[in-house]
C-alpha cells in the first residue's frame, strides 16, 4: 500500500519529476492507489473549475476609497512632520505679532476691570490729608500737574501710589456726607475700556466689583470714580469734582 499522503503530494504537484515518475509506476500496479489518485484529481478539478465566483466590484471600490483616505492622512502627517518646526515658528510669530499689535492698538487705554486689582497693590502715601497737599505731592513726586480737583467738601482719607498698565497712578480714598468713594487718577491714559458713555458725552459709566464706576478724562489723565452709592449720586459727585 502506497502512503496516501505521497499520492496526495503527487496530485498536488509537490514531487520532483523523478519522484513523480517513480510513484506513478508504483501506483499503476495498485488499483486502490490508482482510485485514490483519480479521486484526488477529480476533487481538485472540481474545486478549481466549478466553485462560484463572487461579485466584489463594490467591495473593491470601498477598498480604493480606504486607500485614498490612507494616502490623504499620510500626506498630511508627512507635511506636518516635515515642516513641524516651521509651523511652530509661524504659530509663535503669529502670537507675537498679535500680542504686539494688541499692545500697540491699546496704548493709553486701561481696562476698568483691572482697576480693583491694580488699586489693591498700590501703597499708601503718608502725610497727604487735603487736596492742596495732594496737588503739591503729585507735582513734586510724580512729575506731572495734578488734575483740577478742588472740592473742599470732600475729605481725603488716604492717598495711594502705584502704576496701572505701566502708567503712574494715584488713588484717593475720599469721604463726604454720603459715604466713601475711591478716585483713581491714571496719568497718560487716554480712555477706559469696559464702560459705556452717557448721553452728555462727558462721563462714561460701568460696574466694577459690584460697585458703580464713573470715568472721564481730563488734562491727560483718566479719572475713575468708584463708590457703592447710586449711579446718579456718583455722577453728581463726578460732576462736582470735574466742574470745580
Amino acid at each position, binding site marked *: 500500500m502506497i502512503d496516501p*499522503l505521497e499520492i496526495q503530494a503527487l496530485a498536488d504537484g509537490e514531487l520532483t519529476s523523478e519522484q513523480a515518475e517513480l510513484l506513478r509506476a508504483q501506483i499503476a500496479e495498485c488499483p486502490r492507489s490508482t482510485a*485514490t489518485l483519480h479521486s484526488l484529481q*477529480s*476533487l481538485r478539478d472540481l*474545486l478549481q473549475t466549478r466553485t462560484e465566483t463572487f461579485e466584489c466590484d463594490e467591495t473593491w471600490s470601498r*477598498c480604493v476609497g*480606504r*486607500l485614498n483616505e490612507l494616502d490623504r492622512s499620510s500626506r498630511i502627517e508627512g507635511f506636518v512632520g516635515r515642516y513641524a518646526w516651521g509651523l511652530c515658528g509661524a504659530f509663535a510669530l503669529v502670537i507675537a505679532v498679535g500680542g504686539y499689535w494688541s499692545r500697540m492698538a491699546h496704548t493709553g487705554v486701561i481696562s476698568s476691570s483691572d482697576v480693583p486689582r491694580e488699586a489693591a497693590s498700590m501703597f499708601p502715601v503718608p502725610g497727604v490729608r487735603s487736596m492742596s497737599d495732594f496737588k503739591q505731592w503729585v507735582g513734586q513726586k510724580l512729575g506731572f500737574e495734578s488734575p483740577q480737583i478742588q472740592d473742599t467738601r470732600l475729605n481725603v482719607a488716604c492717598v495711594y501710589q502705584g502704576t496701572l498698565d505701566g502708567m503712574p497712578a494715584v488713588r484717593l480714598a475720599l469721604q463726604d456726607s454720603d459715604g466713601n468713594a475711591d478716585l483713581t487718577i491714571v496719568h497718560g491714559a487716554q480712555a477706559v475700556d469696559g464702560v459705556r458713555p452717557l448721553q452728555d458725552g462727558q462721563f462714561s459709566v460701568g460696574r466694577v466689583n459690584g460697585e458703580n464706576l464713573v470715568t472721564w478724562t481730563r488734562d491727560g489723565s483718566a479719572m475713575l470714580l468708584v463708590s457703592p452709592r447710586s449711579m446718579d449720586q456718583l455722577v453728581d459727585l463726578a460732576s462736582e469734582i470735574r466742574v470745580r
Partner: protein
Amino acid sequence: MTCDGRRRHGLPGFTNRAVHGNAAALAGCSPMRRVHSIRFMLFAKRTQRERFEREAERVFPSIFGAALRLTRSREEAEDLSQEAIVRAYEAFDRFDGTNFKAWMLRIITNLYINRYRQRQRGPQLGSLDDENAYEPVSDEGEAPDRLLFDGLVGAEIEEALAKVPDDFRLAVILSDIEGLSYQEIADATEVPIGTVRSRLARGRAILRRELGGFAKREGYIGKESEE
C-alpha cells in the same frame, strides 16, 4: 547623490523606504533641488500606489472569495478583505516581489486567524493535525468521483465546503481553489508542512464525503453507478 532620488534609487521599483530615505537626504540641498526632490517623492508615492492598486485589483476576486469562504458571511468577508488590502498597502514596501497573490492570501489568512478564530470556543482542532490523522479519499467499492461530482453546481460545492472544519477548509481553499503550494500554505498558516499535508488530506476527505452525500440526496448519481 543625496538629492537626486532618480539616480540614487532608479525607476521603477523604488519603495517607501527609498522615499523616506530620500526625504532624510534633503537636508542641505538647495531650495530648487529640494523642490525637485519633493516632486519626485510625490511622483514615487503615486507610482507605488498605482502599482499596488494594479496588482491588488488583479488578485482581489481571489482575496474576497477566500475571505467569503473562510468567514461564511458577506459582511465579515468585506470587512476582512478591506482590512487585508489596507494592511498590504501599508506593508507593500516589504513585499519581496515574487508572488503577490500568495502574499495577499497570507495576510488575509493571518487576519482571519487573529480576528475570527479567537472568538471560537471549545476544543481546537490541534489533535487532528497529527500526521496519522488521515482518512482515505476514495474507496474501491464506491462510485467513481467523476460520477459523484458531475451533477454538482457551484452553490452545492460551496455549501459542502462550508461544512468542512475551519483548519481543514483553510488548507483546501488555499491549495485547491487558490493554487498555493504546501510551503506557501505553511507560511500563511504558520504550521509545519507535515501539518498542511494532513490537514489537506483530512479536509478533502471530509469535503468528498459531504459532496458524495449531497449527490446521493439530490439523486445526481445514476442507476448504473449504483449497480
